[in-house]
C-alpha cells in the first residue's frame, strides 16, 4: 500500500488513528475512571450498582489505551521513546493505578466478604491516581517535558483538571445509567464536577498559549482567531445547558437522561481537537514532528491494511455491545 501513499501521508493517517484512539480512550475510560473516582467507600450497595454500570465495558475501554500507546510505539517509535523516558515515574504510577483498579473490580466480588472494603478502597484509589497521573502527563507534555517550577505547577493544575473532567463524564454516565437516589446524587456530582472541569478548561486554555508562543500564534492570529471563536463559545454553551438541565433532573419518565453524557462527550471532543490543533504536526511539542518520528513507509503500509479492516469492525461491535447493555443498570451476574 505504501506504493500508493507517500511517507508523509502515511504519517498523517497514523497520526489521525492515534488521535482517534487517544480521544476514544479519554472518553470511554474517562467515564469508567470517573465512576471509580466518585464511588463511596462506606456504602456497599451504591458502590456495587455503580460498578455494575461499567462492568461489561471497562476491559474494552482500557484496551484503547493499549492501542493508543501501541500506535505511537509502532508508527512513531522515536516519539514513544522520548515521551516515555521523560515521563518514567508518572507512567509507572499510572500503570500501578490501572492494575489496582482493574483487579479490584473482580476481586471485590470474588474475594472474601471481609476484604471487600479494602478492594473498594483500592478501586477508588486506583481510579483517582490514574486520572491524576494522566493529567500530570498531559501537562508535562504541553510544557515540552521541561523541568521547571512553572512546568510542575502547570502539570499539577492539569492533573486536577483531568480528575474533575473524568468525574464529570463519570457522573453524567451515572445519570444516564442509574435511577432513584443514586441518579439524584449523580446529578449533584455532575454539577459540581462540571463547574470544576469548566474552570480547568479555562485555565489550561489561558496558560497554554501564554507559555507556547507557537500556540498563541496559531490561535490568535487573523483570520484564525475569528474562525475558531465558535469552538470555545460552543463549549461554554454546552457546559451551561448541561448545568441548567442537571439542576432540574430527573424528568418524568426519565426523558433526556442521556443528554448530559452526550454533551460531556462533545466537550471532550472539542477540547481534544483544540488541543490537537494547537500542536499538529508536532508529536513532541517543540522537539519532534510526526514526519521525522514516523516508522519506515513499508512497515506503516503493512500496518494500514490491518487498521483499515479492524478499526471499523471494532467501532461496529463496540456500538453493538453498548446496544446489548442499553438501559438502566441491573445487578451484574455472570451467566
Amino acid at each position, binding site marked *: 500500500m505504501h506504493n500508493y501513499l507517500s511517507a508523509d501521508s502515511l504519517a498523517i493517517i497514523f497520526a489521525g488513528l492515534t488521535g482517534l484512539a487517544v480521544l476514544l480512550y479519554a472518553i470511554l475510560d474517562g467515564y469508567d475512571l470517573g465512576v471509580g473516582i466518585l464511588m463511596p467507600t462506606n456504602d456497599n450497595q451504591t458502590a456495587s450498582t455503580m460498578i455494575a454500570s461499567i*462492568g*461489561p*465495558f471497562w*476491559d*474494552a475501554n*482500557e*484496551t484503547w*489505551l*493499549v*492501542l493508543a*500507546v*501501541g*500506535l505511537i*510505539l*509502532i*508508527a512513531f*517509535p*522515536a516519539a*514513544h*521513546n522520548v*515521551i*516515555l*523516558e521523560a515521563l*518514567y*515515574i508518572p*507512567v*509507572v504510577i499510572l*500503570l*500501578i493505578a*490501572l*492494575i*489496582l483498579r*482493574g*483487579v479490584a*473490580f*473482580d*476481586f471485590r466480588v*470474588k*474475594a*472474601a466478604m471481609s476484604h471487600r472494603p479494602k478492594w473498594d478502597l483500592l478501586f477508588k484509589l486506583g481510579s483517582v491516581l490514574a486520572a491524576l497521573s494522566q493529567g500530570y502527563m498531559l501537562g508535562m507534555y504541553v510544557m515540552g517535558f521541561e523541568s521547571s517550577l512553572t512546568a510542575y505547577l502547570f502539570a499539577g493544575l492539569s492533573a486536577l483538571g483531568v480528575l474533575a473532567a473524568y468525574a464529570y463524564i463519570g457522573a453524567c454516565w451515572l445519570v444516564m445509567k442509574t435511577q432513584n437516589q443514586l441518579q439524584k446524587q449523580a446529578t449533584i456530582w455532575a454539577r459540581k464536577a462540571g463547574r470544576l472541569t469548566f474552570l480547568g478548561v479555562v485555565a489550561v486554555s489561558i496558560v497554554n498559549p501564554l507559555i507556547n508562543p507557537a500556540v498563541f500564534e496559531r490561535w490568535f492570529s487573523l483570520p484564525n482567531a475569528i474562525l475558531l471563536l465558535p469552538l470555545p463559545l460552543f463549549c461554554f454553551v454546552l457546559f451551561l445547558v448541561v448545568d441548567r438541565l442537571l439542576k432540574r433532573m430527573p424528568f418524568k419518565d426519565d426523558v433526556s437522561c442521556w443528554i448530559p453524557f452526550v454533551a460531556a462527550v462533545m466537550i471532550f471532543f472539542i477540547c481534544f481537537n483544540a488541543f490537537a490543533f494547537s500542536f499538529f504536526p508536532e508529536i513532541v511539542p517543540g522537539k519532534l514532528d510526526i514526519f521525522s518520528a514516523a*516508522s*519506515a513507509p*513499508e*512497515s506503516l503500509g*503493512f*500496518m494500514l491494511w*490491518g*487498521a483499515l479492516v*479492524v*478499526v471499523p469492525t*471494532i467501532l461496529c*461491535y*463496540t456500538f453493538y*455491545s453498548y446496544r*446489548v*447493555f442499553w438501559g438502566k443498570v441491573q445487578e*451484574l*451476574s*455472570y*451467566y
Partner: protein
Amino acid sequence: MELFLRLDTLVLSRIQFALNISFHILFPTITIALAWYLFYFKIKLHFTKDEVWMRAYRFWVKIFALTFALGVVSGITMSFQFGTNWPGFMQTVGNIAGPLLGYEVLTAFFLEATFLGIMLFGMNRVKPWVHTLASFIVAFGTSMSAFWILSLNSWMQTPTGFEMIDGVAHVTDWFEVIFNPSFPYRLSHMLLASGLTASFLIIGLSAYRIYRGDEKRAPKQTLKTALTIAALLAPTQIFLGDMHGLNTLEHQPQKVAAIEGIWHTEQGAPLVLFAVPDEKTQQNLWAIEIPNLASFILTHDWQGELKGLNEFDKHPPVAPVFYAFRIMVALGMLMLLVAWVARWQIFKKQQTSPLLSKVLIAMTFSGWVATLAGWYVTEIGRQPYLVSGILTVEQAVTPIAPENVGFSLLLYILVYSGLLVAYIHTVFLMARRAVDIEEINTTAVDNSLEVQHA
C-alpha cells in the same frame, strides 16, 4: 534500596522486564486454553441439553473473568516497557516489531476485550447462539494474540526476511518475518503449554471441590474432561518439545549447548541428567550422566558431534538455562504420569484415590512453573542478544538513572506479589464457595434456553 543502588540500569531493567513478563504470562497461559474449554462446555450444552455443562460453564467463566482481568492489566504494562526501558529495541527493529505488536493489539486484544463483555454478562441479553459465538470469538482472539506475539518473539530468536540499512532493520519479505524458522515450533509448544496449564488448573480445582465434599456432578465431569485432555496433551507436548529442541539445535546451537551443559565440542556427548555447571572452570560438577544419549537424541547418531560453548564468541549463561530446562522436563514427565494414572483410576473406579487426589490438588498450578521454566530456557538462552545476532540487551537499554528503575521495580514487586497471593487465595475460595452453593437458577436458565431455541 541499598541493593538497587549498587545495580546498574541494565540489570535492573532486565529484572523488571523479566518480572513483568513472567507475571503477565501466567494469566494468558490459563485463559488461552480455558477460553476453548468454555466454548466446549457451551457446545456440549447445546447438543446434550445436560445442565451439568451449564454449571461447569458458570463456575469456570468466573475464574476466567478474574484471570482475564489480571492478564489485561499486566498486559498494559508490557506496551509501555519498550519505550520506558528498551528504547534501542524499537529504534533498531521497530519496523518489524511494530507491525507485529500492532496486529496483536488490533486483531486479537480487541476481539477478546469487546466480546468478553457479552460473554461474561450478556447471556440473558442475547440469543444463545450469539452468546456461544461470543465465547468462540473470545477463544479465537486469545489464540490470535498468541499467534502474533509468538511470531515476534520467534523472530527475535531466529530473525529472517529483513535487511539492515544504516543499522535499522527493514522488511524484505513479511511472510518470512512472520513464519520465521522457530515460529511454528514455539507457537505449538506454547499453545500446548497453555492447554496443559488450564487442564491442570481445572483438574486441581475440581479435585479440590470433590475433596471438600462437593457431591454435585459438575466437578466430577470437569475433572474427567480435563484429565482426558491432559492425558492426550502431555505426550504430544513431549514429542513437540523434542522437535522444538532439534529446531533450536539447527538455528541456535549455543542455546542447546547451554541446555545440555556441553562446554567443549564432543562426539558421543552424554545426556547430563543433573549437575552443577561451573562457569569459571567450564565444567559440570557432580554430574549424573547417561553416556552418548545427548548425541543420540539430538543427532540420532550415538557418536554424533555436538558443538560446545567454546565454539561461540557470545553465549548465554549456562546455569539458569541448564536448571530451568530440567525443571520443565521433569514437570512435563510428572504431568504425563499423573494424568494417565488418574484417568485410568477414573476409568476403573469412577474416582481417584485419596492420595492421588491430593497430588492433583498440589499440581493445580504446576503448568505455571513448567511454562515459566520453559520461557526462561528460551529467553535466557538468547542472551546476550535481544534480537539474535543484531542487537544486544546492552545496546537497547534506556539511559535513565538506576534509582528510577529501582523505584518502579520495587513497586512492581510489591503489587505483583500481593496480587499473586490474592489470586491463588481467591481461586481456592471460589472453589470452596461452589461446594456450598445450592444449584439454583440453572434449571430456569436451561428452560429459557429451550424456549428460545424453540
